[in-house]
């Protein structure tokens, strides 16, 4: 590449085509540009937040071909042809997703920086396992850090969304199973 003349790689901005929330988008960007930055700067989808920028906090979580990823760790060239879902794609026909409603009702959000990532990680969990218990909820959200509201309200919100979605009682944080799970996973934080 770039043999024979002194060029910087920045001169190469290939057109990269992928779907975002069901719509085909084409961006011209340096291939190492982070998906996070492409979403926010090129596509103006600012729902996805940057927290740590190193895959530890989960604020930038999006779904890529049905899997949860930290968009700060994905070079945009790797999303060529991929299907990306961001928090903006959770709503359906202008209606909030049950998870979004539950986060509002149960105080699952405070400053809001972690919330889009929490929602995407929770949405990923429900896609894989529509009836998770508290252990599964905690594991699924273990890569998403919150520094204000704490985790209990977030876990409650996810459990409530499950309950609201199928009418079954959720495994709430006050059950025997929850106490056991808390003992098992209290080091997780």
């Amino acid at each position: 590449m770039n043999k024979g003349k002194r060029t910087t790689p920045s001169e190469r901005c290939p057109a990269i085509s992928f779907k975002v929330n069901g719509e085909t988008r084409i961006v011209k960007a340096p291939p190492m540009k982070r998906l996070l930055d492409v979403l926010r700067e090129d596509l103006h989808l600012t729902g996805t937040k940057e927290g740590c920028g190193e895959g530890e906090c989960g604020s930038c979580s999006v779904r890529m071909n049905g899997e949860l990823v930290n968009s700060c760790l994905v070079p945009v060239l790797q999303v060529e042809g991929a299907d990306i879902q961001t928090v903006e794609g959770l709503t359906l026909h202008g209606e909030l997703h049950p998870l979004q409603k539950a986060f509002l009702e149960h105080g699952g959000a405070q400053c809001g920086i972690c919330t889009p990532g929490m929602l995407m990680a929770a949405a990923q969990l429900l896609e894989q396992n529509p009836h998770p218990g508290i252990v599964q909820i905690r594991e699924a959200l273990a890569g998403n850090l919150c520094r204000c509201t704490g985790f209990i309200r977030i876990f409650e919100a996810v459990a409530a969304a499950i309950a609201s979605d199928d009418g079954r009682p959720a495994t709430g944080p006050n059950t025997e199973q929850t106490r056991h799970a808390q003992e098992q996973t209290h080091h997780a934080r």
Partner: protein
Amino acid sequence: MRGNAATHDLVAPGELGAVLELLAAEPGVWTPIAGGTELMVAFAAGRLTAPKLVNLWGIPDLRTIQVTPQSVAIGAAATFLDLRRHAVIASDFPLLAKAASWIGSVANQGRATLGGNLVNGSPAADSSPALLAYDAEIEFISVRGRRRVPYSEFHTAYKCNGLAPDELLYAIHLPRRFAHHKQYLRKVGTRRAMAIAKVALGATALVENGAIREIRLGAASLAPFPMRLLQTEAALLGQTVTPDTIQSARRALLAEMKPIDDIRSTAEYRKRVAANLLDEFLLQLRHEGSQP
């Protein structure tokens, strides 16, 4: 200083053969990138020195898990979620499935690859103790062909390995012969999720007629690279597990490990914890025999 996408190039030649051609044409120039859970962190922090990267993500040949009656061949770019979801990994190599569950978070597990964990060469690599305990072999590929080496000989020094500049890690081979072995894997870290190991020990052993007929011990964070504990194994091979043999194994372990003080722990703590993990495994072996 933040990383700048304009100062790095990334190309996606597509098929595996095209990647190998590129590596052969300019050996050492191109840095392979798969899930990016290491390299993109370095990139964002402005620490990525490699100016030219070649994409391995999405190459099917590198992500397949092939099962035969004798062995399992895991493509180097199989993710830790792929491993966690695979029925034969769960049934035959539960230590590897367990190690896969320790890698970062769900989002990390869906991107981080087994090959990347090995090539990155962290002394604390989560997958390494299990692979050492399972006697893994690793396979390299280049335009010159393929070759295999025991995983226990892959790491040669801190963050150094036996890959030639034109080679890729192609697959990790595990023999399916541990059904009757006692299997053990434990990691000690600061917390349960998202933590890097202070110490980890993986082990498999077969006991016949009261004596240890086979044993493999693999450790993380006890040396500059993940290491098989050959001296400790030698102290145990052919022995009956008694308080005396446990003591001599403990001495061998302390003699062959080379732990350091670093940001995560101290050498002294690592010695004590490693010896306790070995004790725990050997006591299980003594009381339960080698049925897993």
